[in-house]
Every structure is written in structure tokens, then in C-alpha cells.
């Protein structure tokens, strides 16, 4: 019972799941606003004004607000509390400094339409992040506007289409996409008006080169390759593949969701990739926030840079407005930032440029604006802070240890679980729960049972081409002890399949809810609070 008296504080807490409106008491309030300090104006006519009782929001005390949302936070798994071996999602530690920096008044309280002169610090952050992402991928044209990976994909595809149209090849309307791809790839391609043609994966987990060759014809616009693939494998034929696409007159788009595997090990641009995006909330460790906000900058070759979404930040070699508005030129700034002395910043004319000369601009052939302002700035700040903390060597260490950790788990679990492909992996390993399914426990139940052990479920049933897939990405921020415990738990669950399969099939048992009835949720949707309780 939700409001019964239960002699256990934590249990009573966790089970009082009433919504705020059900805790509302008319006349309570959580905040006091000041009285008007100006004479009151005449109010608009009544036919425009809302009735006082029309707005039904909670009336609760300030303590109620804090206690309620704190309770909700405790009903959650999170990186700060749990291990998330969640393939393709790169759930790694989100350094706290990044959040602290993003909340500084000089970043949090600036308006997107302020003059360039008044936001030089913010523009410097964006400019340097552009340079650094360009360096990490060897794709020097960088647009920070996309608000998430899927928007980065869409921007990348608009760039591909615009570039081909400019070549007079607007008939190219095919997006070639491997059958292992993430669902956003075909969804983004459809939004960009492209017809999706699926390319097969061969028995080794690689792109089926002959299938690709047969399908890459004069209608090919773009090949969308996730690299490493969603099987956690580096495509060994990537150069040949990219040549096939280029020979057919198309462009190569790399989904950078898995860039955490590549930093300092290889650069996508060097391999012939034309366009990629990076999910900053994955590789560059900005928080996932329970489902966003993200950021999905798009990186392109120099040749394609003029098509980037608006805006990009440029650094001019003269101070454009030398007038009185540049009240805060660089003098106040610490010129000895970390490692500044040995940055061969990819900016060609570094050193000759005066500070205070960053500007937002629209690239010449821009695909336009894909969102309201300049991108997820609060996320961009975090990613830039992260990259400074790691530096070039640290970023390489990120990828090295991500690979070691994934291969370690794969090596330790391979006797119990089938591998999707029996090969060394990159940053993630895809297990198949086929043997377990044959014993009556599907991958779903293994995933749910992990929750009882305080470990978040791996990505399940993806990629679609692997039966009973469990995709495990430990990331570099987890210790060997955590990995060993994960292995021990997976072994224990595998044992439970023989000793008590029912218990596994009904997991989880220890969380705020047991399995939820998703079918009814979809058939009879209840999407908001209402006064009659349904």
C-alpha cells in the first residue's frame, strides 16, 4: 500500500510512488516570488487571460520537492552508483570537474544572441574543440551544431547530398548501410530522402565486400559504416571498402559512436572516410543524463567543410571590431593554459593572431541551421574540459585500456558464452546467449538478472544479426576488480540457469519494480497525471 505504515524506512520510501499532484495540498508553496517593483500595467482583455484555476501544477512545500526528487534519484541505476557494461553506449565515468566548469556563470549565463565580442571565452572553447576533434579524426572541417548523434548523422547526410548536388549528381539517392547498423542510420537516411540498401555482413563479422561492390553503383550517395562495427570489430578491409565507394562516386560516412576505440590508434580521415560524427556523451564522457542532452559534432574533409551546418567558429587574423566593445581582450586571460606551450594547435597561423577575434559564421555552402542556436554548448564545454584533462597521450590511454578491458572480459567469459564472432575485439565484445537460451533462459532474462547484482544490463538483442546478443562495453574507467566481479556474476547467473531457471526468468527481484507490463502500456497509453487516477 502506498501510504500504509511500514516499519522500515527505506522500504516505505521506495514504495511511496505517488506523483506530485497526488501529494499536492491547495495553498502550499515551494517558492515565494518578489512583489512587483514597478507600477502595474493594464492587464490584457479577459478573452486572452487564463483562468486562475486552469493551471493545475503541484502545490507542495520546498522540502516536498527535494525529498520527492531525491527519492526518485534513488530508484535509478547510474554510473556514479553502478557498473554499466552497455555496448555501443560507452557509459564511462563522467568527471565532476566538467559539470563544475559548465555551471560557471561565465558559461551558464550567456545568451546565445550576445555579440561575438561579448562571448570570446565561449567562442574560444568552441574553436579549440573544433580543432581538437578535427585532429582526433583527421577530418579538419568540424561543425559543433548537432545536438545529438542522430542529428550529427542527419547533418552528415545533408552534407553528402549537398556536395553531390553541387557536382551535378543529385540523382544519387542510395544509402548503403550494413545490416549490423544502429537504427538511427536508416532513420536518418530516410529523413535525408535516401533509399536504404542493406549490405550484408560476412561470417567473420566484416562487411561483405562483394555484396557491397555489387550494390555500390551510380546511384550510391553514401555508405554509412560504423567503425568499429556494432560487433566491436575493426573493419580490416576498410581501405578497400572506401575505395569501392569512392570509385562508384559516393561518399563514406563513418558513424563515430564507437570512437572510444580509436583515439590515438587510428584517424578516420586517414582511412578515406569523408564524413563522421562523434557522440560527445560517449567518447568524450559528457553525462548521458538519463537520455540526453547529447552533442553530435560532425567532422568532414577540408573539401566538404563549406557545407557544414551553421554556425561554425572562425578565428580571424585581425581584430575585427577594434572599437570600444572589445572591453575584455585577452589581457585578463591566463596565457599559460595547460600544455599550451607544446600545442602544435592545428590552426595554421597560430601566434600571429590576436585574442578576441573569434566569430560565429555561416559556412559558404552551409546546409543551414538544424537547431535553434549554436549546439549543446553546456555539453561542448564539458567535452573540451575532458580533452584538456586527458591530453593527447591520455586519450590514447583511454582507447588502449578500453580495448584491453573488453578483450579481458571476452577472454574470461568465452568458455561460458558464445562469441558473436570468435576474434579479438576492439572496445566491446558481443556475446551470444544461444547456449543459455537452449537451456530455457533468453538473453533478456540474463540481462534482467544482472540488475539484481547491481550491474546494468548489457545492450540486448543488438546487433540484430546476432541471436540472443548481449553487447558488453566495459570502458577504460572500470577497474580490473569490477571486471572480475562482472565475470563472476555472469558465471553465477549461468549456474543459476541450471539450478533455478525460474528465478532468472522472473528477474529482477530486488529493484523498485519487477518486470513491467510494456504491452499494456502501449495498448492503453497513460502518458500524464490526471485527477481520476488513470
Amino acid at each position, binding site marked *: 500500500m502506498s501510504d500504509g505504515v511500514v516499519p522500515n524506512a527505506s522500504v516505505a520510501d521506495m514504495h511511496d*510512488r505517488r*506523483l*506530485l499532484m497526488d501529494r499536492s495540498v491547495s495553498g502550499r508553496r515551494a517558492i515565494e*516570488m518578489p512583489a512587483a517593483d514597478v507600477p502595474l500595467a493594464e492587464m490584457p482583455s479577459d478573452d486572452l487571460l*487564463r483562468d486562475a484555476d486552469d493551471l493545475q501544477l503541484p502545490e507542495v512545500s520546498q522540502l516536498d520537492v527535494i525529498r520527492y*526528487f531525491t527519492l526518485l*534519484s534513488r530508484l535509478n*541505476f547510474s554510473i*556514479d552508483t553502478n557498473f554499466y557494461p552497455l555496448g555501443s553506449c560507452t*557509459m564511462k565515468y*563522467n568527471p565532476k570537474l566538467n559539470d563544475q566548469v559548465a555551471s560557471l*556563470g*561565465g*558559461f551558464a*549565463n*550567456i545568451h546565445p544572441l550576445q555579440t561575438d565580442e561579448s562571448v*570570446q*571565452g565561449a567562442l574560444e572553447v568552441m574553436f579549440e574543440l573544433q580543432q581538437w576533434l578535427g585532429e582526433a579524426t*583527421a577530418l579538419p572541417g568540424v561543425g559543433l551544431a548537432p*545536438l545529438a548523434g542522430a542529428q550529427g548523422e542527419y547533418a552528415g547526410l545533408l552534407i553528402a547530398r549537398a556536395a553531390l548536388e553541387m557536382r551535378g549528381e543529385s540523382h544519387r539517392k542510395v544509402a548503403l548501410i550494413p545490416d549490423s547498423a*544502429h*537504427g538511427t542510420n536508416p532513420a536518418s537516411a530516410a*529523413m535525408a530522402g535516401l533509399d*536504404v540498401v542493406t549490405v550484408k555482413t560476412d561470417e567473420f563479422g566484416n562487411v561483405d565486400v562483394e555484396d557491397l561492390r555489387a550494390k555500390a553503383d551510380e546511384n550510391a550517395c553514401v555508405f554509412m559504416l560504423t567503425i568499429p562495427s556494432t560487433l566491436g570489430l575493426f*573493419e580490416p578491409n*576498410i581501405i578497400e571498402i572506401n575505395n569501392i565507394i569512392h570509385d562508384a562516386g559516393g561518399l563514406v560516412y563513418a558513424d563515430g559512436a564507437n570512437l572510444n576505440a580509436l583515439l590515438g*590508434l*587510428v*584517424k578516420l580521415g586517414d582511412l578515406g572516410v569523408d564524413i563522421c560524427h562523434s557522440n560527445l556523451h560517449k567518447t568524450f564522457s559528457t553525462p*548521458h543524463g*538519463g537520455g*540526453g*542532452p547529447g552533442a553530435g559534432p560532425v567532422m568532414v574533409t577540408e573539401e566538404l567543410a563549406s557545407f557544414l551546418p551553421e554556425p561554425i567558429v572562425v578565428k580571424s587574423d585581425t581584430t575585427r571590431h577594434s572599437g570600444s566593445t572589445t*572591453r575584455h581582450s585577452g589581457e585578463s586571460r591566463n596565457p599559460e*593554459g595547460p600544455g599550451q606551450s607544446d600545442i*602544435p594547435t592545428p590552426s595554421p597561423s597560430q601566434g600571429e593572431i590576436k585574442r578576441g577575434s573569434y566569430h560565429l559564421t555561416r559556412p559558404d555552402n552551409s546546409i*543551414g541551421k*538544424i537547431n*535553434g542556436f549554436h549546439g549543446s*554548448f553546456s555539453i561542448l564545454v564539458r567535452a573540451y574540459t575532458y580533452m584538456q*584533462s586527458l591530453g593527447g*597521450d*591520455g586519450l590514447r590511454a*583511454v582507447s588502449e585500456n578500453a580495448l584491453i578491458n573488453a*578483450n*579481458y572480459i571476452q577472454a574470461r567469459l568465452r568458455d561460458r558464452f558464445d562469441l558473436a564472432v570468435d576474434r*579479438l575485439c576492439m572496445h566491446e565484445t558481443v556475446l551470444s546467449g544461444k547456449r543459455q537460451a537452449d537451456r530455457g533462459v533468453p538473453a533478456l532474462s540474463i*540481462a534482467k538478472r544482472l*540488475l539484481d547484482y547491481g550491474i546494468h544490463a548489457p545492450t540486448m538483442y543488438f546487433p540484430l544479426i546476432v541471436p540472443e546478443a548481449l553487447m558488453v562495453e566495459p570502458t*577504460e574507467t572500470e*577497474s*580490473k576488480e569490477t571486471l572480475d566481479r562482472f565475470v563472476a556474476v555472469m558465471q553465477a547467473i549461468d549456474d543459476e540457469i541450471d539450478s533455478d531457471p525460474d528465478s532468472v526468468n*522472473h528477474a529482477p527481484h530486488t529493484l*523498485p*519494480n*519487477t518486470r513491467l*507490463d510494456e504491452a*499494456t502500456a*502501449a495498448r492503453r497509453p497513460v502518458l*500524464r497525471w490526471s485527477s481520476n487516477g488513470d
Partner: protein
Amino acid sequence: MTSNADSPHPFIPNTASERAQMLATIGVDDFDALITDIPEQHRNSSLRLPNAASELEVATRMQALAALNQDAGTRPSFLGAGAYHHFIPSTVGAILQRGEFVTSYTPYQPEAAQGVLQSGFEFQSAVAQIFGMEVANAGMYDGPTAFAEAGLMAARVSRRNRILILDTADKRLFEVAEAYARYQQVEIEAISRESVLNGDVPDDAACIAFQSPNFLGRIEDVKALTDAAHAAGALSVMHTYPTALGMFKSPGEFGVDIATGEGQPLGVPLTFGGAYVGLFTTKQRFIRQLPGRIIGRTTDTLGRTGYTLTLQTREQHIRRERATSNICTSTQLIGLMVAVYCATMGPNGLRKVAELSYHKAHYLANAIDALPGWSVIGGGGTFFNEFAVECPIAPVEVSRRLADRGITGGLPVTIPPDFGGNTRGASEGMLLCVTEMNSRQGIDRLVNALSDIGNGGAA
């Protein structure tokens, strides 16, 4: 000093001996054996980036960069136009400190994400209430992308392909809608208010989409526009500023079919334009055409209430190229800020914020209108907290001179020839915005500065 035996970085725990043990377990001699699939000529390409820096060094540098920006928290600011400087109660920041929210994942495992899901349900409930609409989704990227997706949804619902946007809407809304619709076999066109109200709406119009308050701050005749859309068999799509709904009638009251808004004014700092959250609301009967994530209530196997993502068969991870959108974020954490904001403000707090903004904006408008050489444009119409003024000198120059006086002025804008009382053809003006954050003292400072500038006062 670090040695080779230590872990490589505070964020990476593996020590050298652990790495060696792990590589041995993997069955390889060294790390290089793990990356033999990478073409050799491109392997180990070094990153030409600065060296790692300590937390102290990075914090110092970032504080210095932040200090280069002119912070709306430390000077009077009159910029709006889609992003608004409103009061954020302390509860929002306090809850945002909870790592259990900040570092959680998309709730694909609902049993392990009830906090995210229930708070998202609170968000949907609050947004639907404020908009007076039947349902809200769990959030879009930002206001303009929500508006763009609303146009596309209207095309799906109506099976028509012309999205007509009232020409008083923000240019950004057009631009983003155009970028979203570019290859979707729909047309985006501008239409004038007069055409709509005269019934001059093409019969293949999917929707009449408009912004109210419009870009220059005026309240549109939502009922007339909506009725005209319906008369033409089109949907009514409204983009709004949610704070205004603390005192003005909601889109739901006028029969609007899809209403969108920028969630930022509800508890989210300006942060140079992002991350924000798009608000997306509609009628129950259209829910299967909604873009984005939706959270629904259900029960668990023991009959207890719980929450889960629902109606997922619309989405990209199930439907792939046939999804209603490629979006797979709900900007959940920003939605949480909105949910905490709404819970804290309550109905009276939200109304008070709206009324304070209204009264202070009118106080400023009256004061400016009384200045020689300055005039508020469109005097007859109703505005909420934004209005355009004609200036005696170029608005960009006004902005510059205000900056010299420590004031962030309004946005220089072009005022169309037929706007309100403007009878002198297209002209340049300044769009000013006032919220509860602007004190009378700050407003008076602006008025004095404008008076001085109008009288030829230089820097």
C-alpha cells in the same frame, strides 16, 4: 611524479602490472596484438594535442575563459528572441547535483530507471498542463526542432504536404523547419496572417503553423488562426513561450492540434543556446504519429505502479527507416530541470513570473515610448514581455553604446513594413525583452542610457 607502473590517468585505473596480467589472460604478448586489423600504415597516428593537465590547471584555465564572457547574471540584459533569462529556484540546481540522475542511461531497462521514468512522467504531466493539451512527449532537442517536427507530424497526420508558416514567426523556426523537411517531399512556405484570416489557405495545406507570442513579441489571434486552419482541413500548429502560459490562455483552450515550445525558460540557464529541451504536445488521438520518446504508466508483475518507455514501435531502433523521426534522445536531464522547476513554482509561482515579466516589460515600453526619437512599434496589439522599438540611430550602434555602459541591449531586428503601427516601410529596430530578473533600477538605467544615446551621447 608518475612512474610507468602507475595507472595512466586518474580516470583510468589499470596499473602497468594489471595491464600485463590482463594481456596475458587475453593471450597476447602486448597491446599491439589487439589492433592488427587497423591498416598498418595508419596505425598509431599520434594525436597532436596538448599534454594531459591536472584538475587544478584545467579548472584555472576554464575559469579564465569563463571570465572572458559577459555574464547576464552580473549586468542588466534585455535579450530574448527565443532564449530567456528567468529566475531558477535553488531546488533545480540541488536536484541537478544528483549523480543518480546525471549519470544514468536512457531507460531501456525500466526496472533500473524508475527515477528517470517517473520524473519524465512528471515532466510530461507538467508540460501537458501548462499547454492545456492532452499529451506531451518526453522532450525534443530544443524549441525550433520541436516546431520542425510538428510540421512534419502534421503532414503525416493530414497526409498533405504543404507546411504553411505564418510570416510573423522567428526566422530560425523557418530555417530549422526547412532543414528538417528538405528531402521529405513536403513544402515549407510562408503565409501572411491576412491570407489565413481571409480563408485564403490552399486546400493541400497540412497545417497553419504560427508562433505566439510572435517573433516581435505580439500575441497572435490563436483562435482565429486555428479556426481558419480547421476550416481548410489543416492542422493548427502553435509554437509558444511557455512562461507566457502562466497568464495567457493555453493553446489547448483554442483547439490547437500540436503545440510546441522552448523549454529553456522553465528552469534552464541560458548556456549560450544549449543544451535546452523542446516541448512537444498534441491531442491524444495523434499519439501514434508523435516523434520522440514517450513515457507511459503501467504495472509490474506484482501489480505495482511503474513507468516505462512506450509506443516504441514509432521509433528508429524498432522501425529503422520507417520511424516517425530519427531522434533517440529526450534531452531527459533538461526535462528534469523543467519538472523540478514546475514543481517548485507551482501554479501561483508560474503565474507570478509571467505577471512580473508582463508588468516590467510594459513599464519599460511606456518609458521608452515617452523618449523623444524612440517609439514602441505595434502599439495596438497585446504583447507579453517582448516588444520592438524604432531607434533614432542604427540599432547595432545602440547595442554597442549600451555595451559600453555595461548593459546588454536587445536584439537588432528588421521590422516588416506591415507590422503593427509601422507605416514607414521595413525598418531596423531593436527587440527588447524584460523578465522578473530585470529590476526597476536596471530598467531605469536602460531608459536613461537610451535617452542619452538618443540625444547623441557617445561611449
